[in-house]
């Protein structure tokens, strides 16, 4: 295919940029692999000659305060804390900071470690959210559990530091299970030069169930045997063994991961503690220390050690992985941007000259370059700049080239530790080339999303939903069940609440509200009454009040699934879908077996992150001799937390004419409403308008009222302007609406459509009827519609969701249409659509 000249020039430049970028990356990677070979060998020999037994038995080994912030980690918190308490180390304390968990994390800790509340007066050196209660353990004297208001991980770490008594801090994640020698290995290196070594990181692996992952016998560790988890595992291994080891040797190690990082306490205090202003605290702290010590020309080192010290829980689903990696991308960009003054400056030595350029080019901007490469190569192949053979060759280079760092990482890890079984080793090697095809696209997408989130200055943690354990430990399941069991208060007024529910269903909401409020006056935290009242308020159109009540119910009963469902429903009604998703994720963790929970969870996940592909066919015929209109549409929709985007391609045939149309639509969320924006283009302009633009603003108002106002311009031979507006009101699940269209320009006329649509329980599926009348067709899309001078229609539509995945849409309409060319004719149209949610 010949390319337009402009495209050719752009593509040529883009190919060159891609080639230079790839070559630079390859050179950098090869250099780093060389250095990491050296560093790994050094660390291996250093370990061999280290007398760990002497350190373990010595009173001179430096004591350490381990700080483990936890937030909603009930699935893994007990094994994680147990593993910390079992660390082989002469003197340590474990400070678990519960950052205002809303699940059963704190209850589990209290029960498992026989915690007792104590009033403790502690140093308030670093600012942190208020401490609620401090617990000491009867069974574990070295354990302190601090319960505090939620403030994020950095805040929790700062709080833990206020309680820490020793000179070194080991900051860990609460979802990570540690090997017994983790701390000793790290501290043995620090103890060689405590004056200079300010911090160390160590490799940790990814597991779907970390509590079981460290039970393997030596030389027989297995992989997860789950593709996504193994790719993540390899990703971390590659990062630590192949790259961070090299940066460590070159003194530009820029990220002491939050999963396991040892820091000198006086340095953290000097820095003012971890910063809650960034999405993640770990990389920023590492940058901050580098910046300060290099600026002040103070000697120091920050190391990364290649030994695997822990297993952390990795996301099992692609959606969760994307969410996590988008956060990583975002924090990398936040940090690079914040410390941009270090870039390329000799004053900051290898950090400014080696580490920062890598992070900028090959981490922060990587998604942009990667997408550019992808598009460029496709364009180049399509237009013939690059033959298909060359294209495939390039793909092959990328597949095997990107496998090299993984392979080297596996090689170095095996040479150093011989931890894996032969089968696991071969599996990891084989996954190397597949990484590019199966894993990198996900990371690329996550990177782009993180990039976008960075531009939008989002700061959320996006904690991923914990993996459901197959054959979950009995204790965990019991606890989950206990938390979901109705509270004692629940049984006290069951009749009144049931009566109120019946009244609400019968539409007598005021009476229902009165009863529920009287129950709540007696028992302010009666969760059943609160939940029932939430729905009453929702049905009454008081969504904000419903949301407040639901939040109250959740705070009073954090483990109650009904409360979480009600809260999520109210948030969804207020168009706060990301928050609703976070809420229902907690419900899904507590009661994965409940169909209503999993349905709402999947629905919200779809609405927040999901995508959908739909194929629609329509057939429109008349009872006179007019040629029928056949139309096929393909649409791809991608939802994002703040709206959705749709690309729609249409193909129509009539009178022997064929025409195509492409539309791009965006639905950004605005407050409790949204906007609909659309751009359309038809290259042939035989049946469709040459181009079109549309915008419409939708709003939801008090009293379950919603409305919209919009404008549409269709550039037929004579341009047509359509002014449109709608109003609707919900009565429980039925939406009554009316829409008015005013057409001017190339055609003139007005039309009105009135309809009623019944939504089913999930608020997505519906069935409806409508009638329309006007001096022009109610929906102007094609040239033929402009010819109508009067129209009367009646029709119905429905949308069905099968297995939460398949979307079936049906629409049928019959009408009497009169055109300028002839008398009235009966028009029939049928539309059938099938879509799949991804």
């Amino acid at each position, binding site marked *: 295919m010949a390319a337009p000249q402009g495209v050719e020039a752009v593509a040529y430049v883009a190919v060159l940029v891609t080639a230079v970028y790839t070559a630079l990356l390859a050179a950098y990677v090869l250099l780093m692999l060389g250095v990491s070979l050296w560093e790994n060998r050094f660390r291996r020999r250093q370990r061999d000659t280290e007398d760990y037994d002497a350190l373990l038995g010595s009173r001179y080994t430096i004591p350490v305060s381990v700080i483990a912030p936890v937030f909603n980690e009930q699935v893994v918190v007990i094994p994680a804390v147990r593993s910390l308490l079992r660390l082989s180390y002469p003197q340590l304390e474990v400070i678990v900071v519960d950052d205002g968990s809303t699940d059963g994390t704190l209850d589990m800790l209290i029960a498992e470690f026989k915690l007792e509340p104590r009033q403790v007066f502690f140093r308030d050196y670093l600012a942190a959210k208020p401490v609620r209660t401090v617990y000491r353990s009867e069974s574990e004297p070295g354990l302190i559990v601090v319960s505090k208001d939620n403030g994020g991980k950095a805040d929790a770490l700062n709080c833990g530091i206020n309680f820490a008594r020793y000179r070194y801090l080991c900051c860990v994640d609460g979802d990570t299970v540690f090997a017994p020698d983790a701390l000793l290995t790290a501290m043995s290196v620090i103890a060689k030069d405590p004056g200079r070594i300010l911090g160390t990181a160590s490799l940790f692996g990814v597991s779907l169930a970390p509590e079981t992952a460290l039970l393997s016998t030596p030389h027989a560790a297995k992989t997860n045997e789950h593709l996504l988890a193994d790719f993540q595992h390899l990703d971390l291994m590659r990062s630590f063994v192949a790259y961070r080891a090299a940066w460590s040797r070159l003194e530009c190690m820029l990220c002491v991961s939050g999963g396991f990082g040892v820091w000198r306490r006086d340095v953290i205090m000097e820095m003012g503690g971890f910063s809650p202003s960034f999405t993640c605290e770990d990389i920023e702290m590492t940058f901050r220390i580098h910046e300060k010590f290099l600026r002040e020309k103070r000697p120091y080192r920050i190391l990364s050690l290649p030994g695997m010290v822990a297993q952390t829980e990795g996301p099992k689903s692609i959606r969760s992985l994307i969410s996590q990696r988008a956060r990583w991308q975002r924090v990398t960009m936040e940090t690079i941007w914040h410390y941009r003054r270090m870039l390329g400056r000799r004053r900051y030595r290898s950090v400014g000259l080696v580490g920062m350029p890598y992070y900028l080019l090959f981490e922060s901007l990587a998604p942009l370059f990667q997408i550019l490469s992808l598009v460029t190569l496709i364009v180049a192949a399509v237009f013939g*700049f690059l033959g298909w053979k060359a294209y495939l060759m390039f793909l092959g280079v990328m597949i095997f080239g990107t496998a090299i760092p993984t392979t080297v990482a596996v090689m170095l890890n095996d040479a150093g530790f011989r931890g894996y079984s032969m089968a696991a080793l071969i599996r990891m090697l084989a996954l190397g080339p597949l990484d590019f095809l199966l894993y990198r696209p996900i990371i690329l997408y996550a990177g782009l999303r993180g990039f976008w989130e960075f531009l939008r200055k989002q700061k959320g943690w996006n904690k991923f939903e914990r993996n459901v354990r197959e054959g979950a430990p009995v204790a965990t399941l019991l606890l989950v069940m206990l938390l979901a069991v109705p509270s004692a208060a629940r049984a006290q007024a069951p009749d009144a609440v049931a009566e109120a529910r019946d009244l609400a269903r019968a539409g007598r909401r005021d009476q229902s509200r009165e009863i529920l409020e009287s129950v709540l006056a007696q028992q302010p935290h009666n969760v059943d009454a609160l939940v029932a009242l939430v729905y009453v308020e929702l049905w009454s159109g008081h969504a904000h009040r419903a949301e407040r009540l639901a939040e109250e119910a959740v705070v009073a009963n954090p483990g109650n699934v009904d409360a979480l469902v009600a809260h999520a429903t109210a948030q969804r009604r207020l168009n706060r879908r990301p928050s609703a998703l976070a809420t229902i994720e907690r419900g899904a963790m507590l009661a994965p077996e409940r169909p209503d929970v999993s349905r709402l969870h999947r629905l919200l996940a779809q609405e927040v992150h999901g995508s959908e592909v739909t194929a629609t066919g329509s057939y429109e015929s008349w009872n006179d001799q007019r040629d029928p209109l056949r139309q096929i549409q393909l649409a791809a929709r991608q939802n994002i937390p703040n709206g959705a985007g749709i690309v729609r391609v249409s193909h129509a045939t009539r009178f022997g004419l064929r025409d195509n149309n492409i539309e791009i639509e965006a639905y950004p969320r605005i407050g409790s409403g949204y906007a609909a924006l659309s751009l359309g283009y038809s290259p042939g302009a035989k049946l469709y308008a040459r181009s079109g633009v549309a915008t419409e603003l939708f709003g939801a108002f008090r009293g379950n009222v919603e409305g919209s106002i919009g404008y549409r311009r269709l550039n037929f031979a004579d341009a047509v302007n359509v002014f449109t507006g709608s109003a609707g009101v919900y009565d429980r699940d039925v939406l009554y609406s009316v829409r008015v269209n005013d057409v001017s320009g190339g055609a003139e006329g007005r039309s009105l459509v009135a309809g009623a649509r019944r939504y089913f329980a999930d608020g997505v599926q519906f069935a409806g009827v409508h009638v329309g009348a006007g001096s022009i067709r109610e929906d102007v899309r094609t040239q033929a519609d402009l010819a109508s001078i009067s129209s009367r229609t009646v029709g119905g539509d429905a949308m069905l969701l099968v297995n939460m995945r398949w979307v079936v849409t049906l629409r049928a309409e019959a009408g009497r249409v009169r055109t300028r060319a002839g008398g009235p004719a009966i028009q029939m149209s049928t539309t059938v659509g099938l879509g799949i949610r991804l």
Partner: protein
Amino acid sequence: MVPRFPVDVESALSVAFQAALALWLGLSFYVVANRVVYNRRAKRLNEVARQIANQSRDSTFPLQRSPALDRVLARLPRRVLYQLVADVSAPPQLTDVFAAYALERWGLPRTLRDASAHRGRGKWRRISALFALGYVRAPGIHDLLERALFDADDEVASAAVVILHRLEDRRAAEILIAGLRARAYQPSRIATQLDQFAIPIDALLRPLLADPLPHARYWAVSLLAKYPDASFAADIAALANDPDAAVRKAVQATLAAINDAAAAPVALRGLDDPVPYVRSTAIRSLAKVAAVEPDSRMRREYAGRIAPLLADRAWDVRFAAKESLVAFGPSIWREVSAQLDAPDKFARNGAAEVLQNIGLLDQLIDDVGHGREPSADVLSVLERSFREGGAGMIDAAAARSNPALFPSIENLLTRLRFVGVRVS
């Protein structure tokens, strides 16, 4: 128009593809092959270990009696054997055999040459050679290790420290002590090994007590804590007023560890030391002495001296005072409760925390709950503790108590003028 690139893209990509594929295949093959070799070697070495374990260590050299063993070792490359010799985690009987074999195979002169010095990456060979010579106690090994200890390379010095500990003779201790004094290597790492010497080295450490270098005195005092039967306690006690604070701190800790008669008076003096960490060590030492003090009057006196330090300006000292007073147990509640009226807020809430942690408050609540009426002054302690401890202390105490006692606790709180406080 095509191609537009300055090079033949297709050919270049073809070469790059082949190179990438070959590299990936080669590396993967290497990893698997290397592991196979390792597994086979590990299997053979396990067999060696079993054979060695079955033979008496006192018999003639096992290699002479086991041709099979000799064959296994003969197949090991020098690099691998050297690595095995220097592997500290390997069982000593195995490393002894490896070391002896290495010397036999490559000869003493060559091993001595390897162990003498290094350049660049040869340091690991030097370290392995030092280990080999150390295990067989080769002549001249002490001199080599002394030189290694003072080497500028940290890894060489570290290995020397480990090997000297394994030699565990007087000369090795002398070298380590000299290294400690000269700060040849990280002193705490040298002290770690000296502290675990099986042979007594107190006589070697004692001269350091009079050393002009403060850190030498510090380490000497600290390491001597291991020798309870101390004839040198007076010499240590004499350093209680040493101009160096670290030495004074070590004196406090060591005298308490050896439970010398001077420990208590020295610790009591240390409570007034101008340096915070000396004061906190003195507090902990005094608590340690009190733990073995049979006279309860003396114990209370010690507690009475520590309690005012709850108001110390340094947090570490206050923390040490709180922890130490808790270690005394409930018997010293009067001494602690006196601080509830101290002008300093730290002292007051510290005292309340100590009274909570020694179980006094729980005991009082339990008594009241069961109808055992405490005396007025005891109730006063409870009232003042709650006053200083605040709502958090009341809530925590209630949460620790039996729920059946809640009404009694609420009554008690009302009597103590905590009006409107409810426990649940």
